[in-house]
């Protein structure tokens, strides 16, 4: 019989560690990514006196180290958080590659890590051996690209051009998109990788325009995506489907491009129309981060998995990571996203992913200033506009 280790009577707080890029190229995510959502949840928990653990109210203290967007520093930080600070839980770092680096370290020290901004296509096979890793965000083949390709096939699109950033995020989306397009009879005319430092997308946009493709996919980070939008508008490149992500899912993209964003597709999605709980959350989150920093892909997901963690800790009645982990792997909890749960690899023994039903949406499209959910399921908040409208007259 398995016994639950009792709560250490000397425990006066719950420690959550995080290696974040407080400085560095990806530092912007501190304003609009997972970090503000997690902090909002921590503030709310602490305002209520903390989490009830084994009959005792424990507040949460977040210990953040700066990794300056450097993966080696992130690995070192995670190790220090686990072995020196003895944190009880971890929030993941920013970016797919960073998650890949951090996840095995968290798992090595048997510390539960909730992954935030980042996908995990290549990490998936490893999840079986990482029972303490729980990946929150939906990503390329989980389940965005298959649903996006279904939408395009339904409308009769035949050709596609892919431009992707030469990091893990871009590589994963490129592979997933090429595979799905090929499976569904859509010809990929070209797949071009770009460096993160690219300053001129003219040649790529001109080539895609000359090829007269139906679909243009840009799998890159916000800086490159802003450049793509500017270049596409300047060169009057107007494919029937323009998918941009990540970046398109942020409200600042809408505030930057306004009417020009009409019909542009992005990864995500959720919005205030997704549910009454989502509407209330949007209002609350907006008050916390401000309108420009609203994230219509991950915002509600990050907050909900934090809620899930809190409920799992309370249900476990201990901070013992094995006990909490087992609760997380087997229980379903009501959160802002609705009822959510983790599907764990290796028959429940491995790390977890949120199943498709838990998300409010997979693919979004800007329509009249709202990032509408358009993928083919019951969560839709608007039908898919195809073809994308022409660029507005400047």
């Amino acid at each position, binding site marked *: 019989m398995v016994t639950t280790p009792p709560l250490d009577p000397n425990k006066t707080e719950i420690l959550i560690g995080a290696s974040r890029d407080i400085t560095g190229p990806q530092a912007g995510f501190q304003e609009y990514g997972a970090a503000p959502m997690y902090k909002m949840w921590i503030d709310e928990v602490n305002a209520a006196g903390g989490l009830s653990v084994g009959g005792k109210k424990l507040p949460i203290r977040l210990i953040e180290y700066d990794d300056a967007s450097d993966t080696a520093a992130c690995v070192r930080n995670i190790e220090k958080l686990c072995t020196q600070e003895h944190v009880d839980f971890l929030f993941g770092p920013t970016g797919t590659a960073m998650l890949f680096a951090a996840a095995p370290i968290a798992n090595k020290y048997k510390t539960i890590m909730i992954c935030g901004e980042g996908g995990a296509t290549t990490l998936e096979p490893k999840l079986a051996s990482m029972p303490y890793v729980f990946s929150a965000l939906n990503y390329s083949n989980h389940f965005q690209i298959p649903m996006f390709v279904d939408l395009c096939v339904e409308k009769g699109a035949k050709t596609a051009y892919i431009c992707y950033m030469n990091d893990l995020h871009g590589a994963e989306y490129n592979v997933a998109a090429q595979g799905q397009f090929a499976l569904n009879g859509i010809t990929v005319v070209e797949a071009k*990788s770009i460096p993160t430092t690219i300053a001129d997308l003219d040649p790529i946009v001109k080539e895609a325009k000359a090829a007269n493709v139906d679909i243009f996919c840009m799998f890159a980070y916000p800086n490159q995506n802003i450049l793509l939008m500017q270049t596409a508008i300047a060169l009057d490149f107007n494919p029937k489907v323009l998918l941009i992500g990540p970046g398109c899912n942020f409200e600042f993209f809408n505030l930057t491009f306004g009417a020009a964003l009409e019909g542009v597709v992005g990864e995500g999605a959720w919005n205030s129309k997704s549910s009454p709980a989502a509407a209330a959350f949007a209002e609350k989150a907006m008050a916390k981060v401000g309108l420009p920093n609203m994230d219509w892909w991950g915002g509600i997901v990050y907050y909900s998995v934090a809620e899930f963690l809190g409920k799992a800790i309370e249900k476990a009645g201990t901070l013992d990571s094995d006990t909490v982990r087992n609760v997380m792997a087997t229980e379903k909890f009501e959160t802002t996203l609705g009822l959510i749960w983790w599907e764990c690899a290796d028959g429940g023994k491995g790390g977890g992913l949120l199943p498709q039903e838990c998300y409010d949406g997979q693919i979004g499209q800007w329509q009249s200033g709202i990032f509408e959910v358009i993928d083919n399921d019951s969560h839709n908040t608007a039908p898919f506009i195809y073809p994308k409208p022409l660029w507005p007259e400047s």
Partner: protein
Amino acid sequence: MDFSKINWKQFAVSAVIPLAVLVFLGIWPTVGPTYQVTLFTYFLLYMVIAVSWTIFSGTTGYISLASAAFYGVGIYAAALFGEKMPLIFVIFIGGAASFILAFIVGAITLRLKGIFFAMFTFGLVLLMKEVIHYLEITVWNTRGMFVILQSNEAIYYYMMGIFVVTMIAALLIKRSKYGLALQSIGENEEAAAHTGINVTMVKILTFAVSAIFMGAAGVVMATKMTYIDPGIAFNPMMSFSPALMAIFGGMGSIYGPVIGAVLFTYIQEELTTGSLKSYYMLIFGSILVATILFLPNGLMGLVQSIWKRIKGEKRAPTRG
């Protein structure tokens, strides 16, 4: 045996203290807290890299910024061969691959001097990064690789072993005629050539030998990172850090880079994760500028200077 002929002070410095340090390092994982063991692994890593760097650059005066390239080669050796063979063999592969790369690069570049050599060696890091980038994205259709995880103790002891070998190699080179040749190249290359030294071959070989330890250290550290990609493997900081550590500690002696590596790593660690983390770059930059301005011979130079003053000498030699 005539014990009166033994120079006990020299014996203590050259044998007793290193042996005591070695014993301490050997038992540390069994008594030290987990994180302190990890921290010492980083000390050992940077000591290896800084001493390796000093073997060539500290003596010849050629500033190499290629350390990250050799370290990165080791990291990728771990990713490519780590699942197929025992770690010790992979360490040899990483060291050998770095040696070969350094030999080729040295043969091409070591006729260049001053800033041109420094620029070229730094270019090598960027070139390696882009080549692996290209291979991963366009040939393998992915980014990054996983490396088989090793225990903290295994990583520590492997790194300690590499450190010991690096120190022995550095001391043997320094105290040999070969080391004297390097020293004379550093003092005046043309004069060294006129004395019959095969200057180019001595430089190339030393450059290549110093790369072995960087590659070997890369293999071991990769097993700590578990996931690696070109950005992690060929991080330019691994080129600048050994140079800064050696300057900080003092390049005139082999122990200078060791002290520099330990202090540099510790200060960096405290500043990045301690209460002063917001001022990390400011404080760290100030320390480095102050060192370069006021301690051109590093901490070892300062210690030597103080020691000589205590002994009543006016000036302190900075090399030796």
